[in-house]
């Protein structure tokens, strides 16, 4: 089920009603759990078995990990959990990719091996719920938190429908305590939730689907070289589409949870206003970058094992982060480019520190709570750094080419069209489309810059009620007029 569908509206209204009826807290939790399974099964019912398997295995393995004192047995249990979770992910997500690469390799070695292409359907959200359950068992292994007492709370933690298929990726301490005590939304939470759902749907349906997906699809679907303007417009359109699509989903998820009285972590903080790439990763898909930091980068040694290892760890993290997004080498290159950007940024930072050691003067921005290491000089963000933000945005757009292009030939063709004059490059986009993309992208960047140190609800709270009402109604009217419903979110495929 997707948030931008009539089915979800009906489902959500029923859930809202049920959640506010005078049932016991346990009954309400059971309702939420059943609803979450229905939410998931409405996409492809058989895959619910995987969800159950993952939940049951990790609940019991997690508890055993926490209670087991024998080191060898603890390690064995951790391996069981890792194999279970990552094995499932590898089979469904990377099975075809691994087989394809193995086939290429043995063919290169002269072996005539041509297996049938496996027809594996990727279960929706497997990457998200695998990471959710993985962090629980790793936390249990490290005894970072106590095991969840009831399987009902644990199942709900894994399956809670607002975050189930595309995040935010939640940690047990963020959500499980909320299930332990009765939660229903206050009037303020309900209204804020409805506002966030409206905003999220506006971002997804009006901006991503209605305005930006067509130009992005047209340009990236081109079979030949493109006119430079078309190439750039296509990339900018995708840059907007992927943000509005995914941030729209996260905003809906947070809004839906809020309507039920729960709080989910922020996932996006105006990433296109980022000054530098570490800043970008503190603003883009925050819960994933925090997950990668805590469960991959730091266990690899982080920055504690010398500069060389720091650079290597950074690159490994970004490469695997790229691969997490999809079973294709283009995603790996996307990750590698980000790794490279972070290297360059760190080199500059190290160079500046060597020239002039910097005193700790600048307080951390209040809203930035998670992410990779941020170079100190970039923390001194002033409005004059808007230019640096634009450069960052420009460089990020280059990486999106690899993220969106189906293969390297297309990616290369796109980059060639973007950075050189292509004689007779195809002219694809209409004037109206170019105006739409330009207006939306310019407004998006300005909006991100203005909002970079605040949050939407903070701004909404300060607004006169009539102005908020006008903006809210404009979003809803455009949502109704766009008549784009039920298209899946891009991140579902990850």
């Amino acid at each position, binding site marked *: 089920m997707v948030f931008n569908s*009539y089915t979800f*509206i009906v489902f959500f209204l029923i859930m809202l009603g049920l959640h506010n009826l005078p049932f016991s807290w346990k009954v309400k939790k059971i309702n939420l759990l059943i609803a979450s399974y229905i939410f998931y099964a409405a996409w492809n019912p058989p895959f619910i078995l995987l969800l159950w398997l993952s939940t049951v295995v990790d609940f019991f393995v997690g508890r055993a990990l926490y209670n087991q004192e024998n080191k060898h047995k603890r390690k064995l249990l951790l391996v069981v959990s890792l194999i279970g979770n990552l094995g499932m992910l590898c089979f469904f997500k990377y099975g075809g990719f691994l087989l394809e690469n193995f086939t290429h390799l043995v063919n290169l070695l002269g072996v005539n091996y041509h297996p049938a292409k496996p027809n594996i359907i990727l279960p929706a959200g497997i990457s998200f719920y695998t990471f959710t359950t993985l962090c629980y068992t790793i936390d249990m292994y490290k005894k970072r938190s106590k095991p969840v007492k009831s399987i009902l709370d644990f199942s709900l933690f894994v399956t809670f429908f607002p975050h189930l298929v595309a995040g935010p990726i939640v940690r047990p301490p963020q959500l499980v305590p909320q299930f332990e005590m009765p939660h229903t939304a206050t009037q*303020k939470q309900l209204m804020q939730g409805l506002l966030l759902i409206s905003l999220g749907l506006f971002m997804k349906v009006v901006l991503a689907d209605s305005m930006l997906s067509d130009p992005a699809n047209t340009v990236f679907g081109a079979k030949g070289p493109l006119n430079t303007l078309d190439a750039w417009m296509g990339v900018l359109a995708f840059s907007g589409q992927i943000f509005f699509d995914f941030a729209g989903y996260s905003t809906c998820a947070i809004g839906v949870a809020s309507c039920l009285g729960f709080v989910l972590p922020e996932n996006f903080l105006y990433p296109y206003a980022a000054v530098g790439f570490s800043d970008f990763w503190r603003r883009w898909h925050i819960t994933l970058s925090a997950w990668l930091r805590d469960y991959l980068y730091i266990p690899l040694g982080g920055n504690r094992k010398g500069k060389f290892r720091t650079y290597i760890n950074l690159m490994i993290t970004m490469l695997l982060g790229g691969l997490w997004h999809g079973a294709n080498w283009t995603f790996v290159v996307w990750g590698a480019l980000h790794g490279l950007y972070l290297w360059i940024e760190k080199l500059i930072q190290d160079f500046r520190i060597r020239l002039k050691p910097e005193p700790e003067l600048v307080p951390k921005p209040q809203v930035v709570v998670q992410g990779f290491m941020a170079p100190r000089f970039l923390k001194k963000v002033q409005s004059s750094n808007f230019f640096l933000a634009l450069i960052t945005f420009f460089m990020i757009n280059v990486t999106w080419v690899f993220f969106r292009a189906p293969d390297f030939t297309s990616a290369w063709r796109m980059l060639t069209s973007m950075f050189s004059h292509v004689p007779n490059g195809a*002219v694809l986009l209409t004037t*109206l489309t170019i105006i739409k993309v330009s207006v939306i992208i310019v407004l998006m960047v300005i909006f991100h810059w203005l909002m970079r140190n605040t949050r939407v609800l903070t701004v909404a709270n300060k607004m006169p009620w*009539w102005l*908020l*009402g006008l903006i809210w109604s404009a979003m809803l009217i455009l949502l109704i007029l766009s008549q784009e419903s039920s298209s899946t979110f891009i991140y579902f495929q990850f």
Partner: protein
Amino acid sequence: MESKNLVRAGVLAFVLVIAFVAGWEFYLRSKGFDTSYYDDGSLWANKREMVYEPANKATVFIGSSRIKFDLDINTWENITGDHAIQLACVGSTPLPILENLANDKNFKGKLVVDVTEGLFFSSAAGNARTPNENIKYYKDQTPAQRGSFHVNHLLESQFVFLDKEWLSLNELLAGLHIRNRPGVYNFPGFPSDFGRVKFNRQEYMTNKMIADTNIQNQVKGIWNSFRQMSKDPPASGAKLDSILTAVKNSVDKIRARGGQVLFVRTPSSGAYLMGEKMGFPREKYWERILAVTGCPGIHFEDYPAIAHFVCPEFSHLSPSDAIVFTKNFINILQEKGWTFPHKQTIALK
């Protein structure tokens, strides 16, 4: 902001949205717009699910836009007592759908294949795109999508403004007619009064279209631009043979299971018909379909009762002519040996 202010803002937004929707709906109705259904994969899939109805109770129609305009489903169902399942796709070849039905072992019913030669004998990928997308949607449809379809149906049946084809935000912006930069291919836009879609997927021309020769000429101009754009000559030789072989294979599979297949060449007129006759001579195309497949066929020119129509824009029948065509078509089908056990007796005009 206090929650009281949030509630105020929410109430204001709600009131403004309701006022806008009511005003917009009222305005569109006053301009003569009627409810129309978006003819996408979900509507097609809904009809595709019905093909398993018993052969003596249903007939499946595939083809291009002509059969969608020319078959008046109410008339058909009233006279024959048979359910008409419309699976034709606008601007498309029916061959992917024919193949899909042929490979579905559970389909054993009656099938009418509409032949618009320029599309039927085309191997251009674009002409197969919609049927293939619809088939994929039908196969991959999720329970949630089915649910949304039914809610959407309920809303589309009540509100004129829910017409994605002509009244979505993008269509409204396209109505600004901003001049295009040089070199961009612009797909010719049909006038919004050309057709409306019913829930049974029948299309019909609006009263404005029937009355206004200017709109009719716009559509004629679009047909002409399609003709000029078409660079490939009509299929012939091995290419034609391979198309016919594919048709025969599909037809054989359906007939082997007890199904019935009949081809129909629905009316066209004027310059369009003249062009079709030149590009696709009857003996080389229409007659070969019947000869290769061994199926019965109804060519409109062979039957005086359906040979006289003048299509407003050369290619599709007006709603009133569609009723006459359908009544006579049923009669001819019976002459060909098709039976309708639930048939009612209605005098033909």
